């Protein structure tokens, strides 16, 4: 047992981080509001970095890495607030032609999701549907959609289904589809973890700079303690998120669903609570569109609701651990 990143994993993490800061600086991220949440050129660059093909076998044109590695990559994507249906397109790699290479953008939904909310309706090509029988694909162009404006997250446009979901073409059976769902939750937890860390960094940097009452506000114990709690939530969630990745790859080390439950729940908690705190630490500036704190907050809520919210996973954990 050595639950620390390997040198390869550190290299992957650093590679993604430098890619994101180079190609997805916040101005680029903010600009996708005007283009339906996706910039096709940058999307292909994401594909070139292996974002979608990361876990695909090498002989299928993939990178051949595991979920533990993918979680690290998605942490970086989350940290940089990279927009788009990243997790769904990643899950679709190998199931939907062109997903792995970034030619086709795939969004997704659970068939029993009563909200009928579709993300990236104007820019995604394919909708992946998960249900208890398997995974299915539908062309987004074939869906009856009504606009929903404005979205919660300006970088995650949404629409609403106005007719029942078509059955779609089956791309996966029930068993592997269930695994796909858990993988999706684990990767989303990775993004949430990235946000929870980024927002802590943003709050701390601001608190060191901002002076009130003749001292940096980070010297006030009340704010200091808020930020200590941010770090605590992030670091605890990091344990669970990394463990979930490892467990998906190697179910012998523990029950996969339970590991994913712990990851999704604690990462959602860390991201939502930390982004709220970051806004608070910023005071009035946190309430502006100009400061990035609101983008982190909004994305945290979007991802917290994806692949099962905290209540879902709390109940699932109770069932998994005690029955």
């Amino acid at each position, binding site marked *: 047992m050595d639950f620390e990143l390997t040198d390869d994993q550190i290299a992957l993490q650093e590679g993604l981080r430098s890619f994101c800061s180079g190609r997805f600086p916040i101005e680029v991220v903010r600009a996708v509001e005007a283009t339906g949440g996706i910039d096709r050129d940058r999307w292909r660059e994401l594909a070139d970095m292996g974002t979608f093909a990361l876990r695909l076998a090498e002989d299928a044109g993939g990178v051949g890495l595991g979920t533990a590695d993918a979680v690290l990559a998605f942490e970086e994507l989350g940290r940089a607030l990279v927009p788009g249906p990243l997790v769904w397109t990643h899950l679709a790699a190998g199931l939907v032609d062109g997903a792995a290479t970034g030619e086709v953008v795939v969004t997704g939904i659970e068939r029993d*999701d*009563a*909200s*009928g*909310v579709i*993300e990236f309706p104007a820019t995604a090509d394919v909708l992946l549907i998960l249900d208890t029988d398997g995974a299915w694909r539908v062309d987004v162009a074939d869906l009856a959609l009504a*606009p*929903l*404006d*404005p*979205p*919660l*997250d*300006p970088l*995650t446009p*949404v629409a*609403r289904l106005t007719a029942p979901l078509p059955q779609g073409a089956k791309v996966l059976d029930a068993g592997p589809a269930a695994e796909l769902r858990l993988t999706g939750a684990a990767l989303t937890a990775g993004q949430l973890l990235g946000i929870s860390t980024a927002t802590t960094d943003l709050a701390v940097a601001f608190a060191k700079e901002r*002076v*009130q*009452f*003749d001292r940096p*506000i980070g010297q*006030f114990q*009340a*704010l200091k303690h808020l930020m200590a709690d941010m770090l605590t939530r992030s670091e605890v969630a990091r344990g669970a998120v990394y463990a979930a990745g490892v467990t998906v790859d190697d179910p012998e080390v523990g029950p996969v669903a339970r590991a994913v439950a712990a990851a999704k729940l604690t990462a959602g908690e860390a991201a939502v609570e930390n982004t*709220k705190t970051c*806004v*608070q630490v910023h*005071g*009035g500036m*946190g*309430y*502006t*569109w*100009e400061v990035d704190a*609101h983008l982190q*907050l*909004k994305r945290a*809520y*979007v991802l917290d*609701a*994806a692949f099962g*919210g*905290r*209540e879902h996973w709390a109940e699932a954990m109770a069932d998994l651990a005690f029955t």
Partner: protein
Amino acid sequence: MDLRYSESDLAFRAELRSWLADVLPTLPPKPAPDDWPARRDWDTGWQRQLFEAGYAGINWPKEYGGRGATLTEQLIYLEETTRAGAPYIGVNFVGMLHAGPTVMAEASEEQKAFHLPRILRGEEVWCQGFSEPGAGSDLASLSCKAFRDGDHYVVTGQKIWTSFAQVADWCELLVRTDASSKHKGITWLICPMDLPGIEIRPLRTIVGSSEFSEVFFDEVRVPVSQRVGDENDGWRIAMVTFSFERGTGFISDLVETDKMISELVELAKRVTRKGATAWDDVALRREIGQMQAQMDALWAMTKRNLAQAERNGVPGVGGSVVKLYYSELFQRLTDVAMRLLERASLSRDDVGQLVGSGSFVEERLRSTSFTIAAGTSQIQRNIVAERILGLPKDR
């Protein structure tokens, strides 16, 4: 201790309720959120209507056109208008709740006679020039400076978080008139917003709206006659403003919060999961039941504050307690709504049959400011700890 409304209170409530029932359906449609001139017209039109019906400034003195009634009637007024969904105070906010009461308490007779009736009649719109980029929680460190030049103050500097600046006629403006003293070097001015040298840049908020602006002053000449109180006594006067804000200023927010709890229940009844409605979920019921209990308690406390203000004339620091408690309650409430909505929370528009879902999402975002604006929760806790509990000041 008596919680019974008097006969005259009950009569007032009945009369107001019936007036609202008549008038509200006749209001013109609301203008677009960012059309400020139209919003000014709409909000001041409503203020004028209130004035003509005798409902403007319930507890303002009659000599300025107010109703001269009790705080209890003011409470009833806020309850009834909020519950009936009457228009929000809107652009009249600063005039009615901040600048007006301050002018009433601290300004000269001429200033009072000029401004107060106009505020009540919806003829004057005010904005607040207090906060600065460098002076937020530490407001007294403000640096927008003014020097005397004959009969004028020449003002240069920047303000921020100025609501309705685009359409305001007047600004309650705090300026630094003595750089050698912190609290005792501040002066309170009534600044006409049409003077040369004032530039307004709207700020975009977390919800994308533009009710706040940055206001830049470049050698703006404000007549000395526009000063309220003495030169360098502006901090004390500003504290009077805050005592109103922290006193009874939050009552309509409480009524709003109470209403939101009921609306959350309605929303929960519309959300289905696992073949039942979310309102059938015992955890949610307990959570909402707890919030309603806390809300009822807060409301009861407010009636105590009111009785004390009625007896002593001045609202106490109890307002900090109200603000701390209701702002966190409101945020919790909207967070419960976010969890309840699951992926239906992804839009600020109502999602299908979930009438009201969008407004809860919007309120979740908007309410992030509740623990920040008008004194952060951290500042409020300092006030409670130091002024009520007598704990030693930070050093």
